[in-house]
């Protein structure tokens, strides 16, 4: 499986994604330039974190218009996997590939810390190998991760299993104190109706080596790598 990591002006987690995928996972990863509507044969597109276009207008709004995103739209329409992390999640929402939007954090602060996550849907290409009932520990680093969707949209999302991750306590409870940014119903990650497009605020690519505190991000990349062959 070949990963394509799309670079926008202001992306800053692309190197971390390369490191996680190539050096840790031993997968193949290539850079994709936002200005080209060509995914160069990538099987899975990664939209990394950062501050594309300096968050001008709204986080992700300008990146969503890039020619590369047209190619991502076609890729996603074909049922192939796309993962947007942090700013990548914001870009996917702005591009209309995921429902809802990410508001400024409720507390007004940029939050940079580890959070705990519970998987709400194991039947996605990104979560199928996460051990059941495992509480994941991953870092967040964002100022605008406060997820919102209209109540009607949210209900549809729940019915289709589109809520993938929730912020929880270390014990696995989606309590208010476990919510770092005010996200609706502690939502930390959502997927498209077909499940092949995932957006999440926490950073799995920063959690791939025990030396650096957590390797829980590996479950997500392993799910992608090992899941693709049986499809």
């Amino acid at each position, binding site marked *: 499986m070949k990963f394509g990591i799309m670079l926008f002006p202001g992306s800053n987690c692309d190197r971390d994604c390369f490191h996680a995928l190539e050096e840790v996972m031993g997968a193949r990863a290539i850079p994709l330039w936002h200005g080209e509507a060509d995914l160069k044969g990538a099987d899975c597109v990664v939209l990394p974190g950062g501050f594309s276009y300096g968050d001008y*207008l709204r986080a992700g709004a300008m990146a969503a*218009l890039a020619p590369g995103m047209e190619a991502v739209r076609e890729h996603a329409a074909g049922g192939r996997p796309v993962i947007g992390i942090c700013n990548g999640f914001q870009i996917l*929402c702005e591009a209309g590939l995921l429902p809802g939007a990410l*508001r400024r954090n409720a507390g007004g602060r940029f939050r940079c810390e580890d959070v705990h996550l519970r998987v709400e849907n194991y039947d996605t290409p990104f979560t199928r190998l996460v051990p059941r009932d495992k509480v994941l520990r991953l870092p967040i680093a964002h100022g605008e991760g406060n997820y919102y969707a*209209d109540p009607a949209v949210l209900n549809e999302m729940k019915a289709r299993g589109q809520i993938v991750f929730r912020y929880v306590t270390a014990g696995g409870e989606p309590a208010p104190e476990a919510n770092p940014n*005010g996200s609706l119903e502690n939502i930390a990650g959502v997927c498209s109706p077909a499940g092949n497009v995932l957006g999440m605020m926490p950073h799995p690519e920063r959690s791939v080596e025990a030396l650096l505190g957590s390797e829980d991000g590996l479950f997500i990349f392993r799910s992608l790598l090992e899941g693709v062959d049986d499809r």
Partner: protein
Amino acid sequence: MKFRAKVEVTLKEGVLDSQGRTILGGLRSLGYGDVEEVRTGKLLQLSLTAEDQAQAASQLEEMARRLLANPVLEKFTFVLEQA
């Protein structure tokens, strides 16, 4: 015809405006205890050419819907005048 437009983008009612709330706290700390709410938004000023006022208005409406505002969270109004 040339037009000038001012597009105002604000958060929908009920959407938490954490910037506004922080600014409210700042005003109160300066002693303006009577301020009850602060809502923030964006002002975009455009110069554009259109055949007439109606065409300019319909273009602006479309631009606001497609890019200037995010309809999930924001609403917009605009004023348009001939330049």
